């Protein structure tokens, strides 16, 4: 079973704060993703990457940066957090695109006050 580990599990910050969410996968998957999950919106893709140094824009990228430092590690950065970014964030990985299974981490619950 593919392993995707996220940290922290919970995070509280204030408006304008700087937040970094971390994700590590240990299955040599090429693709990694950041999603946010909100009631009434389902899972929405923020950014994704197909390898170290690569970044692709997702469907809701505004207010977020991301960086893939190694094949294992993918970070999501909120440099000026806003209350609208209060959400449950999931990292996921897959071997490829399209038909490949996504393996999700356990999620990070972010609250922006």
């Amino acid at each position, binding site marked *: 079973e593919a392993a995707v580990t996220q940290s922290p599990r919970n995070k509280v910050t204030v408006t304008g704060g700087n937040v970094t969410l971390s994700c590590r996968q240990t299955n040599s998957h090429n693709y990694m993703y950041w999603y946010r999950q909100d009631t009434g919106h389902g*899972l929405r893709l923020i950014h994704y990457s197909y390898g170290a140094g690569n970044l692709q824009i997702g469907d809701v990228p505004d207010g977020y940066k991301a960086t893939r430092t190694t094949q294992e590690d993918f970070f999501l950065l909120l440099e000026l957090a806003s209350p609208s970014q209060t959400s449950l964030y999931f990292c996921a990985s897959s071997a490829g695109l*399209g*038909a490949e299974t996504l393996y999700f981490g356990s999620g990070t619950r972010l609250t922006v006050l």
Partner: protein
Amino acid sequence: GDSVTQTEGLVTLTKGLPVMLNCTYQTTYSPFLFWYVQHLNEAPKLLLKSSTDNKRTEHQGFYATLHKSSSSFHLQKSSVQLSDSALYFCALRGSGNTRKLIFGLGTTLQVQP
């Protein structure tokens, strides 16, 4: 553009009864559909997937058949259990080069004793 529709936000059933969760899609590409399940406070996990028209695919007692003629991929189970209570997402492989997954809003299944 590509889209996925799940018409029910909440389905409540008594243990032992059959269930069908609806999923319809729109795409200009050859459809590849997925069902993911997310139990409370857990990560979403793949339940089943298919790209073959009119072929039933099964996993853990759940089954679904992709019907291209009606653009549907409904999830079914003949007898639900308490442990089936969860959030179920239908997802579609998107068109074009990226082939990102497009998720529906999700259906919460509540199974009562």
